[in-house]
């Protein structure tokens, strides 16, 4: 049985305590998507501003547990300022790391801080927490036609 230290890495707790890119963006020009975790009732909003094929800005609202909040915080860092194609690559790579089915060939993507969330895979019930922000990001990208 994996210990709690596999789950609650220091970097995760750091993002949880000091979340990056919290808040909202004006819609339009931004789009917003809403995500639910039906198990625990967490709700999250991902605001996304895409311009000229680049993720100009992204912000996260709502509430959640340490895993969902830190994952959201790291997600914003990983995609902000990136070309849309790169954001999609990170999204796919992260989902693969979480053990989810993703179409296409795996690519070599450096996930940086996000690697800390690897430990979540050992706690299957928490995978939904870790992926909530990402599923919601994917919806927002859809919405933005990106």
């Amino acid at each position: 049985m994996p210990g709690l230290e596999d789950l609650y890495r220091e970097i995760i707790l750091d993002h949880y305590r000091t979340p990056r890119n919290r808040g909202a963006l004006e819609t339009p020009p931004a789009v917003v998507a809403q995500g639910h975790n039906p198990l625990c009732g967490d709700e999250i909003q991902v605001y996304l501003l895409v311009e000229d094929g680049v993720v100009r800005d992204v912000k996260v609202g709502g509430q959640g547990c340490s895993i969902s909040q830190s994952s959201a915080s790291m997600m914003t860092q990983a995609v902000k300022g990136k070309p849309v194609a790169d954001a999609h690559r990170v999204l796919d790579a992260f989902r693969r790391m979480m053990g989810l089915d993703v179409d296409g060939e795996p690519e070599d993507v450096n996930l940086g801080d996000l690697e800390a969330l690897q430990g979540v895979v050992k706690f299957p019930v928490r995978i939904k927490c870790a992926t909530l922000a990402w599923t919601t990001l994917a919806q927002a990208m859809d919405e933005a036609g990106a």
Partner: protein
Amino acid sequence: MGLHAATIKGDFPILDRMIDGKRLVFLDSANSTQKPRQVIEAMAEFMRNSYAPVNRSSYRLAAESNDCYERARAVTQRFINARKPHEVIFTKNATEALNLVVQSWGRANLSSEDAVLLTHMEHHANIVPWQMLQAEKGFAIRWVPLTTDGQLDLTDLDRLLVGVKAFSFTAMSNVLGTITPVRRLTDAAHAAGAIAIVDGCQYVPHHATDVSAMGADFLAFSSHKLCGPTGIGVLWAHEALLDAMPPFLGGGNMISDVRLDGFDTAELPAKFEAGTPPIIEAVGLGAAIEYLESIGMAEIRQHEMDLTVYALNLLKDRFGDDIHIYGPDNIEVRGATLSFDFRGIHPHDVSQVLDQTNVCVRAGHHCAKPLMRILGTPATTRASFYIYNDESDADALADALDSATDIFGF
């Protein structure tokens, strides 16, 4: 305490299980209860010896199986002090029981001019079915609000009841632990010309229940919350109400005749038991009820009151303002279900840490999202106690909360 907690613990095989070398501290009984060997064995024995289809075949084995099934109905009838066995309808769970009331009674009796009264502490099972029918019929849904300590605020009850045809409410909140004043509510409903539907899911497993004393028109509850198997729930109602209602699900057993151009419904209880019923599960439910009765419902309630007082004091003494326990303090109006906020740590994280020492609690919205919004939180941590819990389980909870502080105390 009046009941022998150690003996009772011994009846539940799963409580002997060790995970990671540590014993199980099961505090999620408001969600679903564990099963004693008496129930497990009754079901297995029935399948090994007496199983056969019911209501249809006439050989002796089928008659024996039928007797077992109907005996479970009689046991249930006595358990809730219903007047007639056929007022007890077996459904698949309490949710189906409430849907049955809404779809059958509701569809026949509600129109756009009418109103239905619910409360802010209802479980989704007593909200969503009404909203589904509302989308079709257009009646109004009103809500009894809550006081700050999580009881029903009855100040405006009479006004709220004007024009109401059905008042449907829980006898005990699955989040707050609040026990509602059932008789007062059913009386108020009747005075206003409404029927009273009681969601007994959280009440019936923990209290002696008497449908006449409650003054209820309908009562719904689930087997799996009172040590019985999944796959079976109970709807009780007055014979006259059930007789007047149209059928709910159609199929075998619920008919007295079927022609190419239509059908006639069967008598009660068959009328509301379409298809092959939960035969094995009824046997398990009967065994569960007899098991609870052998302990005594009054003793169960007393044990839970004692344990709740112990746990409340322990948690408040140990954690002071760091813990916020929802619901009333007065033990007379609360059950052994403790929802709390602990140092602002998200319930998912709390339950994760508690799980390290096998303290099993539920973290989430508890199928009561409207209530959570009113409480101003998306989720709570909930520890709920039952007959197989004792003070050592409350101690384990408190100890485990300490380690949550270690990780998240910031």
